[in-house]
Structure formats: structure tokens, C-alpha cells
């Protein structure tokens, strides 16, 4: 795997561990640029073969792992076009994003999200595709999509449902409140909670441990225990696109984009 340095993402391979870094200012909002680079990353990941056993995804930005989808871009792209065309644009983005998420989810490598700060919306969904979440104590996890009149669109609900009890999924989804790292660990999602600024170091130490096992056995174990809910993921895309046609979405996006509220990230 060749080292890559993009505008939103960078990656490289060292000692059997692929590291994917997010670094788009201000808060790793994930838009079309990040998606194009993520597609390139997934293609590289599929070629990595026997030389790697683990993948670590982390953020280089102090504010956190990711604020999720780039809502400003989503809003701008949905303006000045007929609604049906806007829905087609959104569906295309969702299909491409799901292909990336599914590829990481199904990767034979053991995958670790090393997170801190905000882990919101699409950022949370990216962490959820990973096999392990290592959270520093500053991490906060949230699905705020309902306030936009939407549901999480990048696999959030099916993957939460895969890993958690339905009551916790409802709490996260229907209240839009955020969980701290300790709460997420108590719920069963975070495998480790570590000190401030320690998530990447601990993820690297964990990756060294993973390298001691036979790669084929680890990949077989992962495939056995971690089914990918393809049917529900497909239905999630359909529901998201259906909801996107409602006027509440346009109003919700506009309110966020034009907000001068001091608390736009609070649900």
C-alpha cells in the first residue's frame, strides 16, 4: 500500500498496520472530497493482502473524530435543483458511502476506531463499522439526525442494532442526546476507555497484540461473529431518501447552516 496524503484523509502502512487519518478542518465534516478519497482508500485496502493484519482509523484534529456528514455541502447541493434531482444526488452519495462503509466492515483486517472529542452522526457511523472502539475520555457520541427530519444514513441504525440492545438504540436515536465514553462502554460499544490523548497509542498497542495471531484465523473469526446487515442497510437508504423529500429536512438543514446559535451542535 502506497502512502497517501489527501485533503481530508491520509493513510499508510507500517509493521502490518494500516493507519487512516482524518484531517479536514474544522471538524472532519465528511463531504464529497472525503468520500472520493475514502473510495480510493478502500481500493488500496483491498489490495493490501497478507502484509497487514490491522487497520486503525483516527483523527488528527483536536476537536474530535468527526462531526459527521458535511451538512453545509448537503444543503448547498440540494438547492436550486428540482427535489427529485436532489434525491437522486443524495441516493448516489449514500450508495457510494455505503460501499465504503461495507468494505471496511467486511475487511479481513481487524479494525480499530481510536476516537476522541466529537463522534457525531456519520463520524459515529464510521466508528461503528470498526471491530473495536477505543475511546479517550473526552469522546462524545451522538446521532442528532432527527432534528433535521432525517435518520442516520450511513448504516448507523442497522449497525447499532447489530451490537446493542434495542432500548439503547432507541435512546440514542429518538432523544438525539450524546453519550460520553464511559456510558458507551457501559452500553457495550466501546471496548476501552483511556485517558485524554491516549486513544491512538492504545490502539497501536492493541494492533501489536492482534499481530501475534494467525491472520486467517482472525479473519475467519471476524466473519463468523460479525454479520453485515445488508438488507437493513438497503432499507435504511430507501427510508433516508423517502424522508429527504419532506419539507422539514430542507428547513432543518437551512436552520443548521444559517444558525448563529451558540449551541448548534446540541440536540
Amino acid at each position: 500500500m502506497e502512502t497517501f496524503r489527501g485533503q481530508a484523509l491520509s493513510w499508510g502502512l507500517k509493521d502490518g498496520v494500516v493507519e487512516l487519518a482524518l484531517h479536514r478542518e474544522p471538524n472532519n465534516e465528511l463531504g464529497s472530497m472525503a468520500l472520493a478519497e475514502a473510495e480510493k482508500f478502500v481500493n488500496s485496502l483491498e489490495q493490501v493482502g497478507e502484509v497487514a493484519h490491522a487497520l486503525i482509523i483516527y483523527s488528527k484534529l483536536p476537536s474530535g473524530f468527526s462531526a459527521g456528514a458535511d451538512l453545509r455541502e448537503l444543503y448547498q447541493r440540494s438547492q436550486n435543483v428540482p427535489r427529485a434531482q436532489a434525491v437522486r444526488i443524495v441516493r448516489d452519495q449514500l450508495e457510494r458511502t455505503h460501499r465504503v462503509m461495507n468494505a471496511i466492515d467486511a475487511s479481513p483486517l481487524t479494525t480499530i476506531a481510536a476516537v476522541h472529542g466529537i463522534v457525531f452522526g456519520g463520524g459515529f457511523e464510521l466508528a461503528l463499522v470498526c471491530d473495536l472502539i477505543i475511546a479517550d475520555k473526552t469522546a462524545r457520541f451522538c446521532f442528532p439526525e432527527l432534528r433535521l427530519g432525517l435518520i442516520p444514513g450511513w448504516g448507523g441504525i442497522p449497525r447499532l442494532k447489530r451490537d446493542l440492545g434495542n432500548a439503547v438504540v432507541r435512546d440514542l436515536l429518538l432523544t438525539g442526546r450524546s453519550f460520553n465514553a464511559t456510558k458507551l462502554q457501559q452500553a457495550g460499544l466501546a471496548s476501552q476507555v483511556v485517558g485524554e490523548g491516549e486513544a491512538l497509542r492504545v490502539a497501536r498497542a492493541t494492533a501489536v497484540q492482534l499481530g501475534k495471531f494467525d491472520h486467517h484465523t482472525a479473519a475467519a473469526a471476524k466473519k463468523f461473529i460479525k454479520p453485515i446487515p445488508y438488507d437493513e442497510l438497503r432499507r435504511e437508504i430507501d427510508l433516508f431518501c423517502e424522508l429527504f423529500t419532506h419539507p422539514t429536512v430542507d428547513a432543518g438543514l437551512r436552520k443548521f447552516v444559517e444558525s448563529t446559535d451558540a449551541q448548534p451542535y446540541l440536540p
Partner: protein
Amino acid sequence: MPNFDQTLDEILNLAAAQFKVPREKLAPDDDFFKTLGIDSLQTLDLLTRLEHHFRIELPDYELQGVSDFRTLADRVQARL
């Protein structure tokens, strides 16, 4: 369990230390967005630190519209 004044004092100390503002410049009725110069993401960081410090769970929607330390202390006290 700390009383309300103790809770308020601990919040002011914690905010001063985290955002590097002299403690004596913080007053209970200050707008913490202005006094600390913080945005909504930093407010979430403050919330996380409050939850860890007081070992409580404080849903962020309870902070909607809260902008002064005294009301914040009231929300925290209700969870102790």
C-alpha cells in the same frame, strides 16, 4: 453530597482550569459562552468533564438554552 454552593464553586473551578481563565474572573451569573469564549463543541467538552467530575449523566438537551454557571449548577445538582 455537596450542597448547591459547593457544586457551583466546583463548576467554576473546573471551567477556569479547563479553559485557562483566571478563576476570579468567573462569576455565577456570567454567560459562560462569552466569559470562557467557547462554542457549542467546547460546551460539549465542558459537559463531558462535568459528567466525569461529578460522576453523573447529564443529557445535553438539558443544557439547551442554559448559558450561565448558576443554572448549569442547578442542572448538575439535580443529578447528584
